[in-house]
């Protein structure tokens, strides 16, 4: 564990961009975890008397049309958006890695069938598919997660399949079989851990993308519903006020969205270096 941390430190020192991204991601996670205690105001309760105030000492990011503190709403939204993105990516990673690994390892008919299904899934415009899924299943948080997971799944299956395929005939896989390991355990205990570093990059990029996706769905009204604080809805609701010069309603949630996505995108490569034991000396 200590060795891992020391190695992580070494990677981060050599790569300041990753270090900044890591810092940002950690801040976001802390914000999400401690949002209920950090929020200066209640994010839902309206206070019409102080509606549409520009950023000030009392309200750092201003207030919206119902007088709710935007900073508090942003913090609450971080929690929700990250939770949606993380669970969606988690689901598609676990399913995709397992399905893809078995396809790559076994090959043959299973691989061909799954491969074609994946091709068909990828042929859909993915965002439209997600919209259709949410519209069909209903406007609920778990349905956004399902929709996001489904549209990410094909990428994980393909990725895991390709990565396992190149390692399937490696000497250490044969050695494991000679050592009495069954097929199941070869895939789960030998192959999967070895493709993790490569998949970490995919996961990280995907997290950013999943956040955008969840926000996009909500922006279109096909996701989280008002008054729940969520970056996408906040942008959608605030958009009406831009022409009146009340920029802070849109700017801050938009900025939060952008920074979160940027963080996870930059994190990817560094994560691979940290997770790969061969990079250690």
């Amino acid at each position, binding site marked *: 564990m200590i060795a891992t941390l020391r190695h992580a430190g070494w990677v981060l020192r050599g790569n300041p961009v990753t270090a900044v991204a890591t810092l940002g991601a950690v801040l976001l996670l802390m914000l999400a975890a401690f949002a209920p205690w950090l929020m200066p105001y209640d994010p839902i309760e309206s206070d019409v008397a102080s509606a549409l105030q520009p950023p000030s000492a009392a309200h750092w990011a201003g207030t919206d049309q119902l007088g709710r503190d935007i900073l508090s709403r942003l913090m609450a939204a971080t929690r929700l958006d990250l939770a949606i993105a993380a669970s969606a990516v988690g689901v598609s990673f676990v399913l995709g890695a397992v399905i893809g690994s078995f396809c790559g390892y076994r090959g043959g008919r299973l691989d061909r069938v799954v491969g074609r299904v994946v091709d068909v899934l990828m042929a859909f415009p993915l965002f439209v598919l997600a919209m259709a899924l949410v519209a069909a299943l209903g406007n609920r948080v778990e349905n956004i997660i399902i929709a996001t997971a489904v549209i990410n799944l094909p990428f994980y299956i393909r990725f895991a399949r390709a990565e396992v395929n190149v390692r399937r005939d*490696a*000497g*250490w896989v*044969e*050695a*494991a*079989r*000679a*050592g*009495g*390991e*069954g*097929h199941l*355990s070869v895939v789960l205990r*030998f192959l999967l*851990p*070895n493709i993790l570093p490569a998949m970490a990059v995919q996961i990280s990029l995907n997290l950013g993308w999943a956040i955008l996706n969840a926000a996009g769905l909500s922006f279109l009204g096909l996701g989280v519903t008002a008054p729940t604080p969520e970056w996408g809805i906040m942008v959608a609701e605030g958009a009406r006020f831009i022409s009146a010069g009340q920029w802070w309603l849109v700017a801050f949630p938009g900025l939060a969205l952008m920074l979160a996505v940027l963080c996870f995108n930059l994190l990817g490569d560094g994560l691979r270096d940290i997770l790969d*034991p*061969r990079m*250690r*000396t």
Partner: protein
Amino acid sequence: MTAPLLSVRDLSVEFRTRSGIVPALKHVSFDLAPGEMLGIVGESGSGKSVTAFTLLGLLDRAGRVSSGQAMFGGQDLLRLGQGALNELRGAAMSIVFQNPRTALNPIRPVGVQIADVIARHDAGSTATLRARVLDALRQMRIAEPERRASAYPYELSGGMCQRIGIAMALACAPRLLIADEPTTGLDVTTQAAVMDVFRDAVRRGGVGTIFITHDLALASEYCDRILVMQSGEVVEDAPVAEIFTRPRHPYTRRLLRSTPSSVDVIDDLSPDEEPLPPAPPRGDRLAAPVLEVRGLSKSYAFARPRGLSNFWKPRDTAMLRAVDGVDLVIRPGEAVGLVGESGCGKSTLSRMINRLIAADAGEVLLQGTPIQRISPGRFASLPQRRLIQMVFQDPTESLNPRFSVFEAIADPVGQLLPHEGRAALRARVERAATRVGLPLALLPRYPHQLSGGQKARVGIARAMVVEPRLLVLDEPTSALDVSVQAVVLRLLTRLRREEGVAQLFVSHDLNVVRLLCDRIIVMYKGKIVESGTAEQVFNRPAHDYTRSLLAAIPRLRGQRALGAT
């Protein structure tokens, strides 16, 4: 003496790495006369490839020349810019790379690639270019050069690819040629053919050649002079005859004694090591065999592309008979060598014996119990799995990069002896490590932190830890340096003499097999063509293929030809 073609003086190179600056070459000096073939011999990490790349200006970005000069045609190669070097490279000096397959562009016909090199330095009409390409191919004794010129690298064998590589290097009649282990990975017979063509072409053109290799015997057959390198320094520089009769440096002597072709019995190989236990008396020839194989066969289907017209029809079933009716008996404590060129089916056979893949026909009896009906997937979980273990070819590639040494050795125990407690497991792993000479301090390390020899030991410990009765070794030393190979060969002999574990040694290196095995089986195109005691096979080969195999083995100068009577 004529002026040297290339004169290297006081060359030092260092590399920037994570653990600071590491010197790769230390004050290397040598001369190369025109038309001379100079062998640079050394083990991995000795700096022989760095020397080649530095001279050609192809040094990695982390590397830096810290001192020295290399005079070639009145210019110092180390001080030329990339532009001037580009003019020289390919024309006045060129290189033959180690792996012919990766050195050729896979999506261009080989003839076009040779034409590219010629056109780069000496443009001419298409017709003259074509003629020169065909001429270059003919020089390499490539049959049907017109047809070969339009072939893609994947359509050619490894030996043919390397001939193309050499043709490309010689296409512009260079004065200096560097060949970096050009025959590594080729079969002995192919190696001999490629080296003969190479030497003749170089002689004819009067090209000064630097031939880099780790194989002393090969260097002694083809070179005029040999440079021995050790950790970045030239330790010996002498004509071939002298280096083998009167080696001056202790490292040269050690290298010589580690070369399998230099000795007659395994006990003489690197005799500085701890002496081997005496060979036990030859076992009873009638003892129940550990392994008996009868009529084992395996075919693979050629993959044929499917067009639209036959898309729905069953796949064309042209079959390649990889292993064709093989019989084999191995008795307890016996070492059997299985020899043949790549593609002869020896790897398929060893994997079938191990039940890693299923056979199409035939019987495999392990201590008298037939196991061929058990599917490979199920065999993994049976107690018999323990009796037969395998050591794989490349020690680096056969270790899971995410398992520590302890986990790697302990893994088969967890599967095959699941009832042992933690303490017993630890003791067992430590015993296995000690037996193969692996320091216990290395147990928590990961494979990338080990040297090649240590990794080889881990591979052997992993196979030995469950106390098998038969060890199948698939070219276990082909990826190792000679001195490490010598240590591993001695280790294997020791294990066999002390514990009586039978060994099936799969290899293409007859010199190694001769030292290790009581009995030799020669396989050719899926069939066993010859089988007998080592002495019989070497001195009275019965099959033509065996004879050509024996003739192709590189020999140290002055050594009597193997198989000659």
